[in-house]
């Protein structure tokens, strides 16, 4: 602390010294330069000068001069004090012309001092900030007017309007105007859209009313064959040609027929499908598959699916591997639903992974279709897309296709781990005891997930070897949950081995699991 204070004081002292030295440097040492310096300063507070003539006598005119006001002293004459140093040269001139011996005396507050004292006095003033030193102005060597005349004239005020010249105000105004214009455009746009929407809704209601009665009477008055054989002129009596040319009327008609088709069954459903084609609405549905908007394409696919438009299937097939999730899902659903001979090649060739939602949706259709048609599920096992292959294994399980176990058996050894897990589950559900060897290979694989899946399957389709592998696994350092799975499988597989193992290995966890597995009340907890 002490050192710090010392250093601080030294620093302050050094700084003040250097500052004082710098101030002193402003005042010249040389007497000639000092004289010029004073002339430049003109007046300095408290400082004046006077002329001292070292003559015994002076001319009457000089003695009577009202500027100098010389007064006689013992050794000569002394002039009045002057404060304006700028006048030195003018005052010196008559004295020099008269060849008089004179000197300049400096006076600081009525006290005669030498040049050194004057310099110190000035330095003090400057240091204390009581006086601002004047410096010689650097003047251009040329006349300002002549310099100005050389440069071409350009007005300083560039714009006529002061408003435009003030760029900040101009900028803010532009931003505000921009927002107003955008807001106004949006309001106008919204109003136009709302008006259009209202008009569309009103038209839809109007068309709804126009469609309900003819559609109802047609469905009750005409038989299926009659609708099929109806002349176009007769159809136009129900649905006028002038209206059928309007896109909105056609859209409403499509919506109503499809809506009714969903809620009707029996002959009414067939009548609606025939009517749909007779009105040429099937062409509009097929045409919408070429639309650039995905929602229109999906809508078209739904229409084709609902109205059983099998003739549009080649076009639907093109969308089965679309990059759009909704189009792809709907196209596959339509193909599964409508294909006469369901060839699952379009599903096999899908490059996009199947989501669980898609799997659920396809399973529902395949379950329904599988009751009527022969599905060649095995082609899904050859897909380059892993999610499709896994979906294929799931389908074998869900549809109970025991006939495909042999096909699966040939593939099982060469597939990836998660596929093996799915196959093991399928084997287990279908009770494929002939695949016990595959289960044992998986039990020996060393991969934790595969071993657990195989252990679960071993409980259902395992053999003696599976039991000994399970016991081997139990002797290793395994977690409680793994022990539970292995022991449960061992118990299901071979009760005698389970008893023997648990009695020979009275580990606390094993005994706990044993009690749980054998307790009839806790078995399903």
């Amino acid at each position, binding site marked *: 602390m002490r050192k710090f204070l010392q250093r601080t004081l030294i620093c302050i002292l050094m700084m003040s010294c250097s500052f004082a030295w710098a101030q002193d440097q402003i005042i010249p040492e040389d007497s000639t330069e000092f004289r010029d310096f004073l002339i430049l300063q003109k007046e300095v507070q408290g400082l004046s000068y006077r002329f001292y003539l070292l003559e015994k006598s002076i001319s009457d005119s000089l003695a009577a001069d009202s500027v100098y006001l010389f007064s006689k002293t013992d050794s000569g004459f002394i002039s009045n004090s002057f404060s304006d140093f700028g006048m030195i040269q003018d005052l010196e001139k008559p004295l020099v012309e008269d060849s008089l011996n004179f000197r300049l005396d400096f006076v600081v507050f009525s006290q005669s001092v030498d040049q050194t004292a004057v310099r110190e006095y000035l330095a003090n003033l400057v240091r204390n900030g009581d006086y601002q030193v004047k410096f010689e102005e650097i003047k251009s060597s040329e006349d300002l007017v002549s310099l100005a005349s050389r440069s071409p004239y350009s007005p300083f005020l560039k714009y006529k309007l002061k408003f435009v010249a003030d760029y900040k105000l101009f900028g803010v105004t532009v931003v505000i105007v921009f927002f107003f214009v955008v807001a106004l455009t949006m309001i106008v746009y919204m109003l136009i859209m709302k008006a259009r929407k209202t008009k569309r809704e009103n038209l839809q209601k109007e068309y709804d009313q126009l469609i309900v009665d003819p559609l109802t009477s047609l469905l009750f008055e005409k038989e299926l064959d009659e609708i099929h054989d109806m002349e176009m002129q007769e159809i136009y009596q129900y649905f006028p040609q002038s209206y059928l040319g309007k896109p909105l009327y056609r859209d409403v008609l499509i919506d*109503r027929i499809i809506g009714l088709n969903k809620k009707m069954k029996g002959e009414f459903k067939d009548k609606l499908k025939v009517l749909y084609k007779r009105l040429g609405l099937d062409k509009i549905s097929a045409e919408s598959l070429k639309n650039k908007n995905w929602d229109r394409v999906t809508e078209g696919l739904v229409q084709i699916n609902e109205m059983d438009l099998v003739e549009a299937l080649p076009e639907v097939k093109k969308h089965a591997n679309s990059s759009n999730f909704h189009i792809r899902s709907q196209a596959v659903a339509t193909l599964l639903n409508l294909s006469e001979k369901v060839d699952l090649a379009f599903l096999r060739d899908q490059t996009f992974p199947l989501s669980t939602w898609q799997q659920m949706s396809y399973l529902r259709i395949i379950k329904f279709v599988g009751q009527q048609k022969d599905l060649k599920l095995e082609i899904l096992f050859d897909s380059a897309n892993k999610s499709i292959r896994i979906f294929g294994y799931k389908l074998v399980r869900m549809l109970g296709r025991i006939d495909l176990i042999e096909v699966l058996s040939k593939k099982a050894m060469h597939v990836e781990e998660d596929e093996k897990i799915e196959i093991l589950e399928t084997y287990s559900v279908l009770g494929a005891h002939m695949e016990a060897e595959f289960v044992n290979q998986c039990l020996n694989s060393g991969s934790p997930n595969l071993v657990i899946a195989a252990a679960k399957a071993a409980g259902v389709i395992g053999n003696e070897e599976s039991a000994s592998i399970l016991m081997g696994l139990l002797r290793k350092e395994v977690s409680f949950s793994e022990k539970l799975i292995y022991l449960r499988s061992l118990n299901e597989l071979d009760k005698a081995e389970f008893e023997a193992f648990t009695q020979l290995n009275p580990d606390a966890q094993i005994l706990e699991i044993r009690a749980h597995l054998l307790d009839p009340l806790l078995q399903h907890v």
Partner: protein
Amino acid sequence: MKKILIIEDDLLISSLVQFRLKKDGYDTHLVSDGNEGMKAIDSYGPDLIITDVMMPFRSGIEIIHHARQCRPDTPIIVLSSLGEEEQVVLEAFNLGVADFIPKPFNPNELAIRVKRVLK
């Protein structure tokens, strides 16, 4: 002439049902939402009510409750796409509906059931 009240928000379905029932010589009245249905039960005095379950303002179950209080002897047929939902069907039958027809349905089949209920 027997009076049948049809409470259904789908205009096309209600028109189809009305058309079919008129062919059989019934006097029918259509309403498109739950509130209107409640009012019509009191004002129209139907011999049979055909109602949907999912409707604007009031559900079909509320309508059945109301009908059971105002007109306990009027039979009710429920026409709904919730036919696969066991809970809804059970609740409707517990409230004493005469029949439950799930959608999709055949209007001719509905006409036969109406005839049987009104006998």
